[in-house]
């Protein structure tokens, strides 16, 4: 027998930790197009017949924010066999508010009280038997982090799934509301039973739930009623409202909390009553201190970047940061692999050799070295997310964001956008108003995601050899935020004039992130990248290689006749890709890079932003061809060659590329370095403008897909992409024009 168990609970109650513990390595987690991030599905590692569904964290099942609607629609419409309701034991009253609403749906439920270690440490005692009796369902203690109590929990959940007993209806509401609920149930009953294929017990529970929602004035449920039902319930709802001082919704929320207060009084013994200052509160006094908060935030952000990009880590000359160091290791390893592959295809025909070495090896290699940077940045961001500091950033920044018509909470998706735009766009779902969601979705695409990082890293190391590389990269990050804020301000003024945002947000307790959770985040990123490299990037690489090495004359013998080696490949600047690039290049002329190769780079960047780097590596590969290197090094005498790194001062073709890139290119020693790239992108300002354009223009297709999911219609999605393109163009143009004048 197969069962589906849904995990539901408040945000930060430990659902995802529990999900990872239960599903182990079998989870299909991923933020890839097609894989929904909103509900995550996995298989219980100890019983493969049990499916586990991780629902978004929500405080309530009211339809006020998107993730509440997702969780509720899943519970009510898809009806899992059992809901495991995770309750944060350190914050039991507010967590039980959702519990009552879950029980109202009539789905068999088991309650797991999580973070029991912290509860015990605080000296509080929970009477589980009493709580079970009062709620009418099993209540079990767990510690999701350490896995304690999970076997018992799952046994209880499976046994509840087998007998399928709906929770009893609790006596939460007063007489007036109860009688309204009963009258409405009767009205809905006739039509409801007729079209419901489910068993009688389930149908009754569903009916009860629907009736409560009607009394609560829940628009989604009321809209689903037939015309005659709407008319029939109207008077009853109005009548109930009179008894509830004109606001039934508030009355119902209040009744639920009153019920909970009684419940907790009877089952939880608190060690201390009233406000208790925790360690977390003490830490918070420093981190959100009036004077220190903003400087601390700036320092944390700088450390984040320094760990990722700095070549003079902790201001020590020449000490590589973890990210840079790891990148070096990966590059060296790929170099060795490339050599082996070279040996394997050395005897093959020219075009096979070119496809493998210039196309695939070069293409994959170009991005591989940047993964460690992305990995380090992603791990650091996930630590910020896990420890609870993110919410404080929102708390501190709210005042600023409000000026631009957003709430401090919008800052969280923006910061996540530094990692990857796809989950960041999805995180906008947690925002309360539609205006906030839409604007944040649009501006999140401006963020420098991990895939844009290689573009900056490459450009900075080529064009700004003697500049402060960390500072230039940092300036792009700051620019993205400034542009995001400016665009938000403009949208607020022009499009959403009146709607106000709000800022009602929980400030979770600080917790030390577990190594496991951090490693899972890191591993997911690497896995996601490996899949991307193996599919989208691999295929695009081959296509770009093909388009850049062939043209119409490849197929009529003209090339074969003129090429010395008889191959039918074309010169790159006469290729298909060049013809295409030449058509669109003039558009970019005012931005400083109106040549075909950079233009093609922009377009391939939409497949995946890493492709910009891959495209450059392929299209400018003549700049570091063996012939060029030999000619370059011929100016040195043996002594100088030895100094540069050639063993015994003898020129060695095999070592030439590595020595060239490390000792010459990145040191800025070759004035003619990358001559064709520098003919296309002539000045530092043009290079900066190119980075800015790629930073701000339409994100990759995967992110556009995520935007479409959030904005719902193609019209709005098209509008969002239009705004992004226009912004990228204007900002690049202004920076290039003003920068060129100043220079």
């Amino acid at each position, binding site marked *: 027998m197969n069962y589906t168990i849904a995990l539901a609970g408040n945000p930060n109650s430990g659902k995802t930790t529990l999900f990872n513990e239960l599903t182990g390595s079998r989870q299909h987690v991923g933020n890839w197009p097609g894989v929904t991030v909103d509900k995550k599905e996995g298989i219980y590692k100890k019983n493969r017949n049990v499916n586990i569904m991780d629902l978004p964290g929500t405080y309530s099942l009211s339809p006020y924010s998107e993730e509440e609607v997702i969780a509720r629609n899943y519970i009510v419409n898809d009806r899992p066999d059992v809901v495991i309701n995770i309750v944060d034991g*350190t*914050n039991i*009253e507010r967590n039980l508010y959702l519990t009552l609403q879950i029980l109202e749906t009539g789905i068999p439920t088991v309650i797991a009280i999580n973070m029991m270690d912290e509860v015990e440490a605080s000296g509080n005692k929970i009477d589980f038997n009493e709580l079970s009796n009062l709620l009418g369902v099993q209540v079990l203690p767990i510690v999701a982090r350490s896995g304690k109590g999970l076997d018992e929990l799952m046994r209880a959940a499976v046994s509840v799934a087998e007998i399928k007993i709906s929770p009893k209806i609790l006596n939460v509401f007063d007489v007036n509301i109860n009688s309204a609920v009963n009258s409405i149930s009767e009205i809905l009953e006739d039509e409801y039973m007729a079209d419901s294929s489910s068993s009688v017990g389930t149908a009754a529970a569903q009916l009860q739930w629907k009736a409560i929602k009607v009394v609560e004035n829940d628009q989604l449920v009321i809209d689903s009623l037939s015309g005659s039902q709407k008319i029939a319930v109207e008077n009853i709802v109005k009548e109930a409202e009179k008894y509830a001082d004109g606001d039934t919704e508030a009355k119902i929320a209040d009744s639920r909390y009153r019920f909970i207060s009684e419940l907790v009084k009877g089952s939880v013994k608190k060690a201390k009553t009233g406000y208790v200052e925790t360690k977390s509160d003490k830490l918070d006094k420093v981190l959100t201190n009036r004077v220190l908060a903003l400087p601390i935030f700036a320092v944390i952000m700088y450390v984040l970047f320094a760990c990722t990009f700095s070549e003079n880590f902790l201001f020590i000359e020449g000490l590589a940061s973890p990210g840079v160091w790891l990148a070096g290791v990966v590059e060296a390893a790929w170099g060795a692999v490339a050599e082996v592959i070279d040996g394997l295809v050395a005897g093959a025909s020219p075009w096979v050799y070119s496809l493998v070495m210039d196309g695939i090896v070069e293409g994959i290699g170009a991005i591989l070295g940047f993964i460690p940077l992305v990995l380090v940045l992603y791990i650091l961001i996930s630590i910020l997310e896990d420890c609870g500091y993110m919410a404080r950033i929102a*708390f*501190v920044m709210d005042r*600023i964001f409000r000026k631009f018509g957003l709430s401090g909470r919008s800052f969280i998706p923006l910061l996540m956008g530094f990692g990857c735009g796809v989950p960041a766009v999805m995180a906008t779902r947690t925002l309360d108003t539609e205006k906030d969601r839409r604007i944040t979705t649009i501006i999140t695409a401006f963020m420098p995601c991990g895939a844009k990082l290689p573009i900056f890293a490459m450009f900075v190391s080529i064009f700004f050899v003697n500049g402060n590389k960390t500072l230039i990269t940092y300036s792009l990050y700051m620019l993205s935020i400034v542009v995001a804020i400016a665009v938000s301000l403009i949208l607020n003024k022009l499009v959403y004039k009146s709607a106000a945002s*709000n800022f*009602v947000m*929980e400030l979770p307790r600080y917790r030390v992130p577990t190594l496991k959770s951090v490693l899972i985040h890191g591993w997911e990123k690497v896995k996601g990248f490996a899949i991307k490299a193996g599919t989208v990037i691999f295929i695009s690489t081959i296509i770009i290689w093909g388009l850049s090495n062939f043209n119409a004359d490849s197929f009529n013998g003209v090339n074969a006749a003129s090429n010395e080696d008889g191959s039918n490949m074309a010169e790159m600047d006469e290729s298909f890709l060049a013809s295409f690039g030449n058509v669109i290049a003039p558009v970019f002329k005012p931005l400083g890079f109106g040549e075909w190769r950079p233009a093609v780079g922009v377009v391939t960047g939409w497949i995946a932003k890493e492709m910009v780097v891959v495209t450059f590596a392929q299209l400018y590969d003549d700049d570091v061809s063996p012939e060029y290197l030999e000619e370059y090094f011929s100016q040195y005498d043996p002594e100088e060659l030895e100094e540069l790194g050639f063993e015994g001062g003898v020129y060695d073709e095999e070592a030439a590329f590595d020595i060239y890139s490390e000792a010459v290119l990145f040191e800025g020693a070759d004035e003619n370095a990358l001559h064709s790239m520098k003919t296309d992108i002539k000045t530092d300002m043009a290079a900066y403008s190119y980075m800015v354009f790629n930073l701000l223009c339409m994100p990759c297709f995967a992110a556009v897909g995520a935007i479409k999911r959030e904005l719902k219609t193609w019209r709005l999605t098209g509008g969002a992409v239009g705004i992004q393109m226009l912004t990228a163009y204007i900002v690049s143009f202004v920076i290039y024009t003003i920068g060129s004048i100043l220079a």
Partner: protein
Amino acid sequence: MTLKDLNPGQEGTVISIGQKGPMKRRIMDMGVTPGIKVKVIKVAPLGDPIEINIRGYELSLRKAEAENIVVEL
């Protein structure tokens, strides 16, 4: 007096919560209901929002929202 008028460290009891609507519902969903004790913990560095302790956890809201919550000392 409203929640906005309380200084950090002061504690009050909620009497009523503003006008009917999504905002009121959101605030009540988070546990701010009549009769409950709230303590103002701090004000954000830039003067707004504020942080309160309610039902044993920390919640932040803007002064404009706190203004709708009537409390007594």
